[in-house]
């Protein structure tokens, strides 16, 4: 055993240093020295024996990856990289989530102010919160698309039934992970979304004793409070990631075991040749797949960072308040279909149907045993799939605010322009343009484009919810058949002959009240919101996912 010092004496400093670096590289990569890495990057043929296979034999991280893929599955089609992307998103959520955990206490007295601390006191805190939140939604989307792709290319068929079953469980866990994170900011959005979810759990088709105990387990107390928050926090950061991790490794083990299924047209019917890859059709993991994955990591990171910084912003409403229910509580978009179903059928029926649907998805490949994966042979299966998707899209739309149970007309106007939660049109007017005074809908304020625009929106909202407002283009139709309020069940409740004004008054230095006054037949309401000069609601309206 020669020491570095001996080597220097023998070969000179430069050569000895190069040899040392080579040795270090070989240790780190578990088998490839600097020369091998450079030749791989240049695209040269590997030397014999192939050093690029050694990491798969000797290192932990690469031993779980196949050493080569069938060239046919390395293109965008048929995988669309969706499985890889799901894994990437899980890692992404773990990293951003751990950083957020540092600044978070799962207690009702601290959680909400922790959110503001992250926004106002932690460098890059808002970016990390946005990245975590946008990541959660992207992950749901990616995992769902991954499932859809697997169905369409018939990759769930024998021998991959179990891979499909674990994948379905991973989809459910992804939804639960995303949703359980919803509660943690402890704002109104979080509190009421979870309250709706828990009332669903309470309605499960089981004896009342079982239901009340399910509820007790899920929230730790008869109502949602400190115990519930702590439990959902632990579900979110510990239990579900752990279960998801276990199922992920089983899932991936099965993927590697059976090989990536080839495009359906590439195989004889009933054959599975994924594991029999001719030498000429191999794409080696080192360096091609690895480089490709590094590239996708860089590109996805870029897209997520840019999205979180400029295009998308995680919401934060008022502190959770069990006494005040905001108008139009909506589920997150990926659960909107369930809210749509709740409008169609009895709660117990819906809550019972969803697990039934999941189980039937999980066991589907064991019953659907048609041998062919080719599209032309699976007309019925694919038609059912597209029909199901159509149903889901319609259900999602039915769950959205477009298809909601309508509130009273004046409350709907308030919700559109000066809502209790979120910025809204009126609060988004910069403070210096909120000139004190009393204004009517549609009034034009010279030299004040912001307030003028808000008053235009005011007029439009009044037009949608009342009949005889001046300038309502649908006036005659409205008088004969009620307004075109878009709910289907309350067309004739529009305000008749409303008088409505907006009053702006400065009540303290830098603090104004915005009061909407409604007078109509059966309506007499003052609705006040407060606006401080520094509250910066206009900031909230710069993002594509905010409606101001």
């Amino acid at each position, binding site marked *: 055993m020669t020491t570095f010092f001996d080597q220097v004496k023998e070969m000179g400093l430069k050569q000895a240093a190069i040899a040392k670096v080579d040795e270090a590289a070989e240790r780190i990569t578990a088998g490839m020295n600097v020369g091998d890495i450079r030749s791989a*990057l240049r*695209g040269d043929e590997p030397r014999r024996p192939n050093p690029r296979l050694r990491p798969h034999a000797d290192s932990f991280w690469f031993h779980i990856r196949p050493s080569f893929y069938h060239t046919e599955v390395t293109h965008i089609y048929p995988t669309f990289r969706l499985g890889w992307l799901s894994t990437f998103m899980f890692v992404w959520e773990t990293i951003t989530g751990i950083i957020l955990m540092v600044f978070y206490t799962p207690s009702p*007295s601290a959680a*909400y*102010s922790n959110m*503001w601390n992250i*926004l*106002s*006191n932690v*460098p*890059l805190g*808002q*970016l990390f919160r946005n990245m975590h939140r946008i990541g959660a939604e992207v992950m749901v989307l990616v995992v769902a698309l991954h499932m859809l792709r697997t169905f369409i290319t018939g990759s769930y068929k024998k021998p991959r039934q179990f891979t499909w079953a674990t994948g379905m469980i991973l989809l459910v866990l992804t939804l639960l992970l995303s949703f359980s994170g919803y509660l943690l900011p402890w704002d109104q959005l979080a509190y009421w979304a979870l309250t709706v979810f828990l009332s669903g759990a309470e309605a499960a088709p089981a004896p009342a004793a079982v239901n009340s105990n399910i509820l007790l387990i899920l929230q730790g107390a008869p109502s949602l409070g400190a115990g519930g928050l702590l439990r959902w926090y632990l579900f979110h950061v510990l239990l579900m990631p752990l279960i998801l991790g276990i199922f992920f490794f089983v899932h991936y083990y099965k993927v590697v075991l059976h090989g990536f299924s080839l495009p359906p047209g590439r195989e004889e019917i009933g054959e599975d040749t994924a594991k029999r890859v001719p030498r000429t059709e191999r794409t080696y993991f080192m*360096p*091609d797949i690895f*480089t*490709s994955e*590094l*590239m996708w*990591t*860089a*590109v996805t*990171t*870029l897209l997520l*960072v*840019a999205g979180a*910084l400029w295009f998308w912003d995680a919401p934060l409403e*008022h*502190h959770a308040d069990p006494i005040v229910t905001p108008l139009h509580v909506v589920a997150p978009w990926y659960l909107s279909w369930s809210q749509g179903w709740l409008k169609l059928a009895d709660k117990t029926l819906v809550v019972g149907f969803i697990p039934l649907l999941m189980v039937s998805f999980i066991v589907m490949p064991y019953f659907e045993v048609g041998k062919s994966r080719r599209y032309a042979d699976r007309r019925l299966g694919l038609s059912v799939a597209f029909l199901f998707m159509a149903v889901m899209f319609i259900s999602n739309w039915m769950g959205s605010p477009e298809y909601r149970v309508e509130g009273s007309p004046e409350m709907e106007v308030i919700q559109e322009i000066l809502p209790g939660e979120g910025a809204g049109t009126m609060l988004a007017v910069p403070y210096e343009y909120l000139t004190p005074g009393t204004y009517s809908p549609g009034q034009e304020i010279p030299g004040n484009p912001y307030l003028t625009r808000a008053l235009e929106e005011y007029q439009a909202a009044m037009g949608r919810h009342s009949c005889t407002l001046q300038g309502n283009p649908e006036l005659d139709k409205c008088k004969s058949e009620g307004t075109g309020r878009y709910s289907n069940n309350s067309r004739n409740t529009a305000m008749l002959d409303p008088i409505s004004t907006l009053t702006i008054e400065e*009540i*303290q*230095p*830098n*603090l104004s*009240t915005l009061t909407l006054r409604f007078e109509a037949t059966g309506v007499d309401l003052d609705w*006040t*919101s*407060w*606006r*401080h*000069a*520094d*509250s*910066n609601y206009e*900031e909230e309206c710069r993002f594509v996912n905010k409606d101001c």
Partner: protein
Amino acid sequence: MQVKVVIGTIAFMLTMIILGFAALREPARLEEFTLAYEGRSIENGARLFQNNCATCHGVNGKAEECYDSAGNVVGCKGLPLNTASLLCGDKPSRMVTLGWEGTKGNFVQNTIAAGRVGTVMPTWSAQFGGPMRDDQVGDVAAFVLNWESDAMCGVEAVVFEWPDSVDDFLADYAGDAANGEGLFLTYACSGCHGDLGTAGSNAVGPWLGEIAVIGGDRIAGTSAAQYVYESILHPNDFIAPDCPNGPCLSPSAMPPNFAERMSANPQDLADILSLLLGE
């Protein structure tokens, strides 16, 4: 593969540039959000104040304009909050009177949270059995402190030299009982002492409907007028024996700052004296 290396490298570099850009902008953004947090706290406090505090402290915090739940005008039971004696300077006079050693913010927050013993001010914090969470108490305190303005605090406080004898005082200021009736409401006297016409309507302090008769008996050698005059200006000098729940507390629950509040308008005291003494 070379293309992938290039794309990946460019994407990585762009990410780093974006993060660098975000980091450069960060101090300004943090400042903006700190202000926004404070601003929204004041907004929340304003809503809470309107729903909970305005009944006693008045809609603009001056204890001048109070309504009951049906919308009728009632006498304000609380002290004015929108006033220089609470808000101006690091040590406003009300803190000095009560011997409070902490900050102004703590003083207001503590008073809201724990109430004030011996007065009708209840506890508001859930910690002490009230209805508000601690963040809400903080919000209300932020709203109250936001009344501080240069217009209010820039003005030099008027200090009126109150004569020792009520006769000397009334020689300069003739009282008007009719005006005194309104002042009895706006200075929130009725909040504690009740309606002068109805015996037993007093909630905290003694009923004053007969003070013109019994006032002269309280301290030997002191007329009713002198007694009432001194009791308003210096409530702790003599503690009345006839509060609704037995003898009045010492120190008195009566705010000791009327001498200061009436300095700008000594006529107000003359009018109230005239109302109480029926002269």
